[in-house]
């Protein structure tokens, strides 16, 4: 959700109404070229996200069932309470990479949007190498033994009647950050394509030829 930019005028042809208005027009994105690698990595993230998006209506249903059971039938189900945060964490952990592919993480655009595309790409390159990459790697590095330990201990919920297989939901943390790493590599390839001409940029015509 980028906050300050100079959006394109949206009053071009017809007066916009809430029905035909696309909020995306207001958001400032860096227009990086695509590469073969970025296309395929983004596709992987897109596919997994497309499944993860459904965790929200599912979560809504679980809460409704939980509420109805408790207030109408006086039944408490800790497994349902736990299922709630299972679903919600799947949603946003997968979302981390999805959001990065769409370039929708919060940025302070104050200066950024006034910079040239090349400068923006340099910032992105340095940011990825010195800020995001180390952070994501450290989290992944320590998250793997964290999941492993849970698996070895056959860890279950400590709540009465809670859910088993704690390692499975803990593994979603690894999944989320692995996908984030993927999203980052995709973006890195796009930045490099712009700055160094490598990897090669995919042209629109090529994509069209391949039926995209």
């Amino acid at each position, binding site marked *: 959700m980028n906050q300050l930019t100079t959006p394109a005028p949206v009053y071009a042809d017809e007066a916009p109404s809430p029905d035909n208005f696309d909020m995306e027009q207001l958001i400032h994105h860096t227009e990086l070229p695509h590469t073969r690698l970025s296309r395929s990595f983004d596709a992987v993230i897109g596919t997994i996200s497309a499944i993860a998006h459904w965790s929200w209506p599912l979560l809504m249903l679980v809460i409704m069932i939980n509420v109805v059971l*408790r207030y109408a*039938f*006086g*039944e*408490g189900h*800790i497994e349902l*309470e736990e299922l709630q945060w299972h679903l919600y964490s799947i949603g946003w952990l997968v979302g981390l990479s999805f959001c990065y592919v769409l370039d929708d993480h919060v940025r302070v655009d104050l200066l950024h949007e006034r910079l040239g595309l090349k400068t923006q790409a340099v910032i992105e390159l340095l940011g990825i190498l010195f800020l995001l990459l180390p952070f994501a790697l450290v989290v992944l590095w320590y998250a793997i*033994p964290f999941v492993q*330990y*849970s698996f070895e*201990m056959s*860890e*279950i*919920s*400590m*709540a*009465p*009647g*809670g859910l088993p297989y*704690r390692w499975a939901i803990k593994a979603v943390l690894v999944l989320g950050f692995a996908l984030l790493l993927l999203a980052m590599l995709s973006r890195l390839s796009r930045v490099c394509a712009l700055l160094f001409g490598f990897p090669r940029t995919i042209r629109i015509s090529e994509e069209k030829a391949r039926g995209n």
Partner: protein
Amino acid sequence: ADDQVRWKVQAVFNTNWPGLGNPIRLVEESLKEASGGEAQIKVYEPGKIVPSFQITEAVKNKQIPAGFAWLAYDQGKMPAAALFAAVPFGMDPMGYSAWWYEGGGHQLAEKLYAPHNIHPILCSITGAETAGWFRKEINTPEDLQGLKIRFAGIGGKVLQKLGASVTVIPGGEIFPALEKGAIDATEFATPAIDEMLGFDKVAKHNYFPGWHQPFTASHLVVNTDVWNGLSKQNQTLIETACTAATFRGLAYSESLQGEKLAGFGAKGVTPHRLSPALMEALENATNEVMQETSSTDPMFKEVYTSIQDFRQGYDQWKELGSL
């Protein structure tokens, strides 16, 4: 000097909670004074560094050298851990200490935690908690049917067996949930601590005895490598500081409860004893839960058997010897 101790210690309970949390502050003070500044720990309030449920695992990984932990939070990984922290229809603080120091308790705890690179030291005990704060009276086991209650640990399993609708909503949300009637009842700790959380303001029926937690124990858990690297002098200092803090914390906690109970009357709180029928149902259900867990987890069985064996003599002595 190499022998200096400078530990970050994560606490599991607020350190202003009498008996439950304040002992670790006592350890912090006495260590510094007694060692002339050579051994110092810095205690962090709950969640400041490591989340409360993750303390022992963090100590295992040497993410922090030591923590002040409630071992029952490990029961998802090792069910036996709960028996060192709180046992429904278990012993009183004196009995637990006797078992811990002299009846094989600490050896079993060390055995349980040795594979996890953790050295546990008893560092806090409180007496019985209240059996909970209820918005309505409960008299018979049937009253538990569908009762929306916030209850953690083994006690929660027992209540679930008896048909209660058990929930585990987190600490900060208990008060509003109880106040507004999203839950009908909750347990938490001793009267002095429950008052700090304000339960007396919103649930007017306070039940006793604390069947689910006749004692509550917490431990200083130290990473084994860190512990073995200490000089004998520092090890002794830390053990002594914990033993002293356990006793002083218990004394402090016990000294407050009477006054708190007396104050509840003016606030419209009615104290109740659980009815014999309820107590019997709870005890039977507890035995069932204990048997079930014993049959699925060998270590749980070993610890529980040790406790039960110890109690044979201890209970008899209490019955004969005590007033």
